[in-house]
């Protein structure tokens, strides 16, 4: 009986030894190294301005507006964006040349930076210009992050006069490519 019992215990120990196993070294501290670097594309600004909506101010200015742009009030965005590229595209179907000024304004309506885009008069064929990418990094990015409003100034350059029968539009399309580094 005794022998039998110890024999059983021995067998149980053998079986139990099956439960020993090995494990590679794991390092859980490396989760601290997690860095998300998503690249997000998003609309930035756009308009579609027909001749019929033109107002005629001084210096050829035919349209002006400033819009709130409170994206950078978000702390998360201010802190985690490391670079922003903005692409602009203008389309002009009016037989006059234009200059579009896009103003980055701070909370006190002071101009931080003006982006200027020239587009020639439409001469019949497709008249779309894609401008070189505006890259915001370092100090220029810091200025961008202070932007609280975006101002749009559209000026018409001298040329053939327009009348009430004139048609056409000037269209702006733009999108940002935003590089995040979230740690």
């Amino acid at each position, binding site marked *: 009986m005794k022998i039998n019992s110890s024999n059983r215990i021995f067998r149980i120990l053998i079986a139990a030894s099956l439960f020993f196993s090995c*494990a590679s070294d794991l390092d859980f501290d490396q989760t601290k190294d997690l860095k998300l670097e998503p690249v997000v594309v998003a609309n930035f600004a756009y308009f579609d301005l027909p001749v019929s909506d033109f107002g005629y101010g001084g210096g050829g200015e035919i349209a002006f507006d400033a819009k709130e742009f409170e994206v950078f009030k978000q702390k998360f965005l201010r802190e985690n964006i490391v670079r922003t590229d903005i692409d602009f595209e203008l389309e002009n179907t009016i037989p006059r040349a234009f200059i579009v000024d896009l103003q980055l304004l701070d909370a006190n309506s002071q101009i931080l930076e003006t982006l200027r885009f020239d587009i020639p008069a439409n001469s019949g064929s497709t008249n779309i210009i894609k401008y070189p990418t505006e890259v915001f990094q370092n100090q220029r990015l810091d200025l961008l992050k202070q932007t609280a409003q975006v101002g749009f100034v559209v000026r018409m350059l001298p040329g053939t006069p327009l009348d009430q029968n004139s048609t056409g539009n000037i269209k702006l399309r733009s999108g940002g490519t935003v590089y995040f580094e979230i740690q």
Partner: protein
Amino acid sequence: MRQIRKVYLVLISAIQLTCFAQNKEILYNFTSIPQSSMLNPGADVSYNFYFGVPLLSGISANIGSSGFSAYDLFADNGVDFNDKVRSVINKTSNNDRVQVNQQLELFSGGFRIGGEKSQSYISFGAYQEFDFFMYMPKDPAILAMYGNQNYIGKSFDLADLSVKAEVLSVFHIGFHKKINKKLVVGGRAKLYSSGANATSTKNSGFIWTQQTEGTPNLYTQVIASHLELKTSGISSFTKDEYDRSIASDIARNTFLDGSLGLGIDAGITYYFKENLQFTASIVDLGFINQTKDIETLTYKGQYRYDGVKPNFSQTDEPGNIIDDFEKAIPRDTTYNKYTTWRPTKFYTSLQYSFGESRSSEDCNCKTSAKRKYANAVGGQLFLMSTPRTPFAALTAYYKRSISDGLDLKATYTVDAFSSKNIGLGFSGTVGKFNVYAMVNNLLELKDVTKANSMAFQLGFNFVFQDAEK
């Protein structure tokens, strides 16, 4: 010791990351272990009485992660952690899941009722359970890791976010009766007390960016969100003024002040012939009414992002992007009670026995003087409800009685986590003292950190059969 620490770390990390299957394929129908009644209350278990060693009678954990292992993410091999995360995101699908289930019996016991000739039994006990289940949030992970730049036209599916977790205690009482030589039936009533629950399994919506020629904007960007996270027993921890210990508060709530629920188990064993046995059981068919410290957080709505558009012809109407977004998809908090269903498990098996056992003289005389077979082979099916399609596992097994006091069971299981999961368990009895231990995925034991799933159960009982004559 170091290994134990590692295994512990793996368990913890898996709990943090994913969720697991609750299949206990080795313990199922292993009738020399009283705890097999917990998987089939109609299991053909017999004893005069038994009690489990408190806190040590049933310790079990199941961890599963289809698609990636702890090693893939945490290996100490010099590879940049972000590269590991990217590789895991790339190789997993939104149907990969992480699952953790852990149970600890606080006490358990059972006894025969109705005298020596009777074959009716009462069993009872209490255990603590932790469940975690999460599907791989593939699309949100891609968006967070890479952004939408290279995914124009793709609709990021928010339904990929599906996760639930619960800590609960279960008090149960069961009854089983061997009606005749062929049939055993049993049932168990359960009272659940949930200390903490988080459920976010009914999400839908998408984040979509498209580029279409001829539209007034560069991109068409839409977020449609139907996100909902229900919690019970958790929201007070998130408040600023909370200054107690979360662990002890959850423990207290789990046993003394939880959200209550009810459930049943039911099962049968049927012998077509003396050596051809069929079993089936359903476990945790029940619900919990989540009523304590409840909070539901939702983000529901739709938002189309167009960017800044000047209004040249009129004076400006106020409004800005962030406000518009928060109005379109508001964060709402509500405080409604909700009901959660327990993950319901279904087992069935068919077993063929052969080879009479060499009965030793000092036999412990199981109640009925039936023939005892030394070998059994069989197949088992396991099903479990999940937030999407049920989890299924198929097991083939071989069981052998080495002697009256030692039984072994070997299993081969195919499921979502592994196609070659070999498990082994034993039940050993010395005198009245019963020890059982089982572990699966033996092929992965050479490095558990690389395993997609691991499970073990072990426990100690005192089992008293009929007094020796």
